[in-house]
């Protein structure tokens, strides 16, 4: 299953002069960056650095105060979130925004929305095209559930899943929109070591499918392990960017964020076997 076209050399996401101001506070200022297609791009920085704000600008939740965001050459800043989703950007949320009272399968089926068409009239009057479209939606949704390994849980209510599975489901759901770019907002938050490893594998899998990954995370081990490039934000500005090796040695980054000792913060993961909450 290929989700997106194979990697090309053109950047998939280009950010120029991005600014986001709330009243007097500038959450983001003068962000210029290009994300090459088909890589895992990490976004790190202290709390309050503007990472989630940047995600919100890209996915359309926020309208930037200034600047341009282009997805494969098409300008998307200030567009409605659902339009941006149609153009191929998908995301997860820090607080796991699953539809808790819908089943696991229904959550993923919902994500097929931008790739399907039947509206109020077709649905209400059960016009001929609708039934076959529903079947296709269900089929595709099961495919994505299979991809992330949650097929046995398809009939359960999403809210009853343990946190680790919920995070995986949210990613599976985001994949089902067939995005070209997926934004993962702290997917490892609250996961134990084994779950984090599985998450890392899944993210690599996503990259192999041709989807570009933009990843906000605090777990440095995970970041260093799987990222191709890292962007460091601090006080709403790009502090540094480069490969993991480069960032590890960057003194400004070490000073601002990674801690004083040897450059990589000590992992605070719970030992394997402990359940997530």
């Amino acid at each position, binding site marked *: 299953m290929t989700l997106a076209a194979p990697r090309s050399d053109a950047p998939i996401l280009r950010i120029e002069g991005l600014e986001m101001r709330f009243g007097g506070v500038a959450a983001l200022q003068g962000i210029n960056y290009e994300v090459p297609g088909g890589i895992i791009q990490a976004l790190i920085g202290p709390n309050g650095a503007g990472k989630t704000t940047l995600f919100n600008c890209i*996915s*359309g*939740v926020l309208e930037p105060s200034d600047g341009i965001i282009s997805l494969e050459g098409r300008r998307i800043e200030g567009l*409605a*979130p*659902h339009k*941006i*989703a*149609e153009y191929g950007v*998908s*995301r997860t*949320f820090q607080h796991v*925004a*699953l*539809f*808790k*009272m*819908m089943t696991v399968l*229904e959550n993923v*089926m*919902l*994500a*097929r*929305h*931008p*790739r*399907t068409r*039947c*509206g*109020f009239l*077709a*649905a*209400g*009057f*059960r016009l001929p095209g*609708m039934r076959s*479209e*529903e079947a296709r*939606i269900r089929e595709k949704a099961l495919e994505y559930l299979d991809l992330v390994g949650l097929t046995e849980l398809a009939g359960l209510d999403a809210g009853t899943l343990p946190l680790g599975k919920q995070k995986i489901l949210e990613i599976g*759901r*985001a994949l089902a*929109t067939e995005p070209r770019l997926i934004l993962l907002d702290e997917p490892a938050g609250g996961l134990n070591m084994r779950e984090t490893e599985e998450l890392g594998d899944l993210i690599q899998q996503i990259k192999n499918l041709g989807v570009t990954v933009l990843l906000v995370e605090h777990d440095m081990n995970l970041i260093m392990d799987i990222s191709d490039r890292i962007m460091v934000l601090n006080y709403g500005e790009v502090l540094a960017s480069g490969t993991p090796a480069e960032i590890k040695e960057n003194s400004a980054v070490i000073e601002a964020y990674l801690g004083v000792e040897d450059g990589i913060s000590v992992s605070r993961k719970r030992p394997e076997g402990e359940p997530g909450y």
Partner: protein
Amino acid sequence: MGRKNWLILLGTAVFICIFPLLVTKIRAISHYVDVMIFAGIFTLVSIGLSLLMGYAGQISLAQAAFFGIGAYTSGILTTRFGLNPWAAMPAGMVLCGFVAWIVGVPALRLKGHYLAMATLGFGVIVNIFLAEQVNLTGGPSGLTDIPAMRIAGFKISSEIAWYYLVWGIVFCALIFCLQLLHSRVGRALRAIHEEEKAAESMGVPTARYKVQVFVVGAMLAAIGGSLYAHYVTCINPSSFNLMWSIRFMLMVMVGGMHSLWGALAGTVLMTFVGNEWLQMFAEFEILVYGSILLAVALFLPGGIVSIVPMIAARRRKRSSTIEDAVS
């Protein structure tokens, strides 16, 4: 749309069909047919509201206004312009849909209290219009002598004929709404209700869908209004005021706003309360409605239909703790 719903639909249909046959046998309650006709008409209004409140999660205090626009459109077109009632009804639907769209696009950008006030304000404006435009609407005394409807030349005048006509239309509307809910659109509506931002990021055009549900609800209310106008044959603005919008909300909440069956059950129950059991205590009507609404909002927000799952869940919890204790 799911086996459970088809079963309930069938069961309800059977009950509705035989209801008059049972009830007309007993003198004292043979007028229940008349009450059920009103219940059916009001159900058309309340299922639209249930879609909006229980599924899309938006509040509206304007349903009585759309009910009124439908009723008056039918009334005016048939009395002043001699139009066939079956042509006037779609005209009312289209007008209501159009007005709902115009009001809905700006209004549904608002949330919560602001949306409630906006729909409230709109509803009162419509009511004032109906009372003031005397040349068009007959003013406070309204319209009279609204002609009867005919099917294939036969005049629908008996209670029984009205009963089956109204409930036939109600079932068509129910099937439409049930099919809507068990579809891509229905999933999107439920998603909007639970996590609107996430739904939006999955490509659901939340603003557009909220307006569309609002329009569907208005058009259903318009159908109800047309039927109402032809059934009671004279209408005036006092049947389409704020108190009525609150009554419709009460019907939906009492039954259970997260379920179409809840809206149906609540509407039938509250129609009997209003048209039957409170008749002797007319001064208490408003107070009773307010108390029921408060009680439901405080203690049973899921309405009557949520009682069964609640009891089942409690029983399950109790039995599981016993098992844990034993093992």
